[in-house]
């Protein structure tokens, strides 16, 4: 018998006026995996997540969480998911303990159990020392950890993380990654959205790339990377090089389309096999094209993104920035997604 998918969504659509912020996305997330949803600002990641978490009505399509229908049984869904948004959604006027106790009580725990859960989570997230401090004295990283802790009081089997590390410093980011891995080790399933390609690469077992409300690619990080070639030749051309000549040599010798940054003279060439690098270098030598540095690397997800969508990961940033810890920004998805459309 196969186990029920943690998320099984077919043809999800969400429109804001004229704009289809989510435009027919299918999603299948298996139990116990970390599934990454990767895309630039305004791609529709947050909108999709809000639909799955019952925060936005689903315009068309169907979604099931552990077999429970999201549209018809939202109350059941809310008992199965924990949601942590891009901004801290805890009460500023209460202490960390009071916050967790309140969320526990609201979800039907008895007072003593809610207190025990609060203590356990504060310990687990390294917040014991701040247990009775008002949230206003918390650092950004502490808030984010408390926010995640608040989603975990009833140990939900599915956890939505909307850009969990946006705005965190590298050290706190690493801690957050460990915490997320820990959740899965305990048996939960995690769906996380991110615009950091390395984050999806580090954490996610499978990744969906979302662009302009559509899923444009899906697979393991390695599958996605190999879809743009197994290796990338990175070249730094000498300042007075004829870049157009270099480009033609690459096309002819390696049958590949180089990605050129004219200003810096940098050139990246996707390769099927690393052997091709030698052919290109020999071609350059014969034509008198001189280079300053050369290296062969596995492709990054940035290049994946560029190849799949035809534009870079940060090219279509909207005016309403996803990073902004302002809930109001989320009420204007049209502004954000509208900016994404202009890039076409």
């Amino acid at each position, binding site marked *: 018998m196969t186990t029920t998918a943690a998320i099984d969504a077919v043809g999800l659509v969400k429109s804001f006026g004229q704009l289809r912020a989510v435009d027919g996305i299918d999603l299948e997330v298996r139990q116990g995996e970390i599934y990454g949803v990767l895309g630039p600002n305004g791609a529709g990641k947050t909108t999709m997540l809000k639909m799955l978490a019952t925060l936005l009505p689903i315009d068309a399509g169907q979604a099931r969480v552990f077999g429970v229908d999201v549209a018809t049984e939202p109350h059941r869904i809310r008992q199965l998911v924990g949601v942590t948004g891009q901004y801290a959604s805890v009460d*500023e006027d209460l202490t960390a303990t009071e916050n967790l106790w309140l969320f526990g009580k609201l979800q039907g725990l008895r007072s003593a159990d809610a207190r025990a859960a609060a203590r356990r989570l504060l310990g*687990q997230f390294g917040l014991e020392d701040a247990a009775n401090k008002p949230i206003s004295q918390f650092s950004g990283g502490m808030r984010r950890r408390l926010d995640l802790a608040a989603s975990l009081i009833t140990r939900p089997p599915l956890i939505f993380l909307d850009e969990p590390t946006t705005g965190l410093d590298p050290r706190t980011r690493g801690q957050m990654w460990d915490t997320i891995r820990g959740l899965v080790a305990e048996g939960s399933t995690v769906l996380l959205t991110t615009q950091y390609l390395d984050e999806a690469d580090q954490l996610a077992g499978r990744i969906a790339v979302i662009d302009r409300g559509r899923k444009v690619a899906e697979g393991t990080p390695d599958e996605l990377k190999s879809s743009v070639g197994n290796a990338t030749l990175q070249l730094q051309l000498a300042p007075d090089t004829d870049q157009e000549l270099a480009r033609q040599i690459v096309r002819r010798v390696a049958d590949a389309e180089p990605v050129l940054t004219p200003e810096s003279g940098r050139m990246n060439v996707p390769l099927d096999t690393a052997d091709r690098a030698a052919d290109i270098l020999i071609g350059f030598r014969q034509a008198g094209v001189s280079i300053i540095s050369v290296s062969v690397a596995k492709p990054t997800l940035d290049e994946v993104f560029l190849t799949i969508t035809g534009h870079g990961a940060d090219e279509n940033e909207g005016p309403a920035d996803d990073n902004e810890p302002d809930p109001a920004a989320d009420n204007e998805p049209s502004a954000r997604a509208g900016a994404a459309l202009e890039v076409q």
Partner: protein
Amino acid sequence: MSTMTAVPLPAVDPAVAVARTRPRNTLAETISQTLSMAWRALKKMRRNPEQFFDVTLQPLLFTAMFAYIFGGAISGNVTSYLPLLIPGIVAQTVLTTCMASGVQLREDMDKGVFDRFKVLPIARIAPLAGPVVADVVRYLIAATLTFATGVIIGYRPGGGVPGVLAAIALSIFIGWSMAWIFTWIGAIARNARSVQGISMLILFPLTFLSNAFVPVSTLPSALATFVKINPVSLLVSATRDLANNGAVTSQVGWTLLAGLVVIAIFAPLSVRAYRRHI
């Protein structure tokens, strides 16, 4: 880490979690959630004592001010004006306190924590009803202080202690029911300032075009008609009957009914507006 982590928790099992889910909240759960929300509102009140300025200063200031300014003109002297005035001030103060509920709800709804309330499996009315329940404390302070100020400057309620207590209880109930109007405004308005604006527009005519401060007999007939059907007049008359005469009159009954009607209309409207505000 903490000693709690010594006992490892069992693994999360989705099948068990799904089997444990229930299709909706029971009434007992809804009440428990509302009380938890009321607890939150009370904590916030205690940590932001400036929230008590309106319910403490307004009764003191308005009672003394109105008594000494209008007392002579309306009733010949201050003491004989007080039985007319005090119930009026009680009604006015309770209504302004309701307005503050709407403004605060709007401010609260704009904060991140309301996003979490929306995703929790709690009754949609709980985040709205919680603050309204907690505000009973504010109505109690406002009504009690108004009567106390009145007594200090010479008011001797004919209904005695039971009459005054009944009048306070009735004001709290009305404050509690009227708060749903402002909760609704809070849920539909764009921001806290517009809640304030809309509320003032409703509140000022209602309190001043009532029998709160002047006898109806002194008014021109068209105005008198409006004043008589104004629900604030009902509350003021009922409060006067209870506090001044200790009498449970038909006015008291009508006032209670009006309160229930307001709740029946505006509580569902508020929940509907809150659901949409996502």
